[in-house]
């Protein structure tokens, strides 16, 4: 009986259970899909509006209309994955802590962080993933077939892209779980949760927009201290810019940042568990 837990099979069961649950509330599922898609569509509309008034974002930044849409698509891919697999769990973690339901997680003979981070999935958020893929395909095609200076990208880019999308997901997850875990110390935590949204808001734009007296320090802080700018920028750049110079450096850094974020979040989670008081019965 001295076996290590079968994390793969357990994850598949989690995913299966969530899918079953989502399907049992079919109308709700459809409504949620439509909701997230309409939100994404409105957002897209907003950027279409902006590009009525300008050809690119930032001067000489390289983010013209279609490049920016690749960026936007990448943002959709990363965020939809986070929203599908991690967001329902991190939201629930605060509630588990408050109600004492975390007790049950601590009883199970598997890693608590694994259990608490992955047990529920929200499948309706994957609709945005599909939209992101569509937008990515369309924009890349536009870039590759345009008359002036068509974009070329090789198999390396196609291979690295999903890797960096996953890195982005892991970084956002680490931030999220670390913040949720602090509700063990800080009690009711709506502000912290909003905090996550505000911080990750910075990741939705190309890092080039952060310049100037206020911008540059922000850019530095959000790349090297809380690496949210790495999340969407790196994979997007992999797709639309050559992998040289600053891009190559950032790509390497992104890998290191992913590992570091995960390690930091794990440390915080474990410290939090030590302070767990459970709820009074």
């Amino acid at each position, binding site marked *: 009986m001295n*076996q290590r837990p079968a994390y793969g099979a*357990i994850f598949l069961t989690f995913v299966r*259970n969530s899918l079953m649950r989502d399907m049992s509330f079919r109308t709700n599922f459809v409504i949620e899909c439509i909701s997230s898609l309409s939100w994404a569509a409105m957002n897209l509309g907003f950027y279409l509006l902006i590009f009525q008034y300008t050809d690119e974002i930032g001067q000489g930044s390289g983010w013209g209309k279609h490049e920016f849409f690749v960026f936007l698509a990448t943002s959709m891919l990363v965020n939809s994955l986070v929203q599908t697999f991690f967001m329902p769990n991190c939201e629930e973690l605060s509630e588990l802590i408050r109600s004492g*339901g975390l007790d049950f997680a601590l009883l199970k003979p598997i890693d608590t962080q694994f259990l608490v981070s992955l047990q529920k999935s929200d499948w309706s958020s994957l609709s945005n993933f599909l939209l992101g893929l569509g937008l990515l395909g369309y924009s890349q095609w536009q870039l590759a077939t345009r008359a002036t200076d068509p974009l070329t990208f090789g198999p390396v880019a196609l291979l690295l892209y999903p890797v960096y999308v996953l890195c982005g997901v892991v970084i956002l997850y680490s931030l999220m779980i670390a913040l949720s875990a602090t509700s063990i110390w800080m009690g009711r935590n709506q502000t912290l949760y909003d905090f996550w949204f505000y911080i990750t808001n910075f990741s939705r734009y190309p890092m080039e927009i952060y310049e100037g007296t206020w911008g540059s320090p922000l850019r530095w802080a959000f790349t090297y201290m809380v690496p949210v700018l790495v999340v969407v920028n790196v994979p997007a750049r992999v797709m639309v810019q050559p992998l040289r110079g600053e891009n190559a450096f950032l790509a390497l850094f992104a890998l290191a940042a992913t590992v570091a974020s995960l390690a930091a979040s794990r440390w915080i989670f474990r410290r939090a568990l030590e302070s767990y008081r459970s709820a009074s019965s």
Partner: protein
Amino acid sequence: MRIIEIEGLRKSYRVYQKREGLMASLKGIFHREYREVQAVKGIDLTVDEGEFVAFLGPNGAGKTTTLKLLSGVINPTSGTARVMGFVPWKRDNEYRRRFALVMGQKNQLWWDLPAQESFRLHQQIYRIAPSDYDRTLGELTELLSIGKLLRQPVRELSLGERMKMELTAALLHSPQVLFLDEPTIGLDVIAQHNIQQFLRHFQEVRRTTILLTSHYMKDVAALCRRVVIIAQGEIKYDGSLSGIVDRFSGHKVITLQFAEDEPPREADLVRYGQVLEVQPPRAKLRIARAEVPRVLADVLARYTVEDVAVEDRPLEEVIAEMFAQSETRSD
């Protein structure tokens, strides 16, 4: 063989004070006051394999905290404990696969799915071999009569049925040690009885070591020979059920039935002891133990008595009084 060994276990909490008023709340942004609450004040206990032990105590006595300490859910402030040789709060996966905790009125099964899906998840998590799983599930389903309910979403089940599902889930991996925290709380009498029957049968067959907390006497009386009474974080008594009355109760209750035409009134009876109830032709008196022979002799001599019963005070009363006493003592 000793399976649970607890020595000097303590757990205290900080509770933050909130005071009334606007200024106090504003001050609260900068400085918080707190006080220490000692939930468990030094418990020593040993339990042998296969025993069925009950923890009795009023609310806030520390029963649930003790179980949570033994489950590894919380860390102690000081003291040691070993269950099956493991230190619970280290949360070894090996330890966690060998015990189970069930908490009354707390649900860990997926709310919207049929229980059997949650059971399947359990199987994955505990790595239960398919043959063992089928066999154990079959046994439990039969013992608890939940066959038809397995496919229903848990939210549609009644409280008693949900409790049965929780128990099933807890026992699927055949734990050696079972902790039950108020398992019958909130259930109707029939459901309580069913669960009690099940637990007794299960324990006899499987020889699982069981620790049960409750504040229902019926649970305890039905299931355990050994009772540990906890109040205010300390063990007040550890022994058999009947021993409690002997130890803690200094009184007996005498019920008298008088022959009809001359029943004495309350005023006449008061000199014997406390009159609990007078409903002619019956009367109930509370008499100090040592006085019982003398009082009986006197009453029988004075009046015509049709029927006499000499009983111990109800266990609940004894225990309640014991809790109340220890509370006043510590004040």
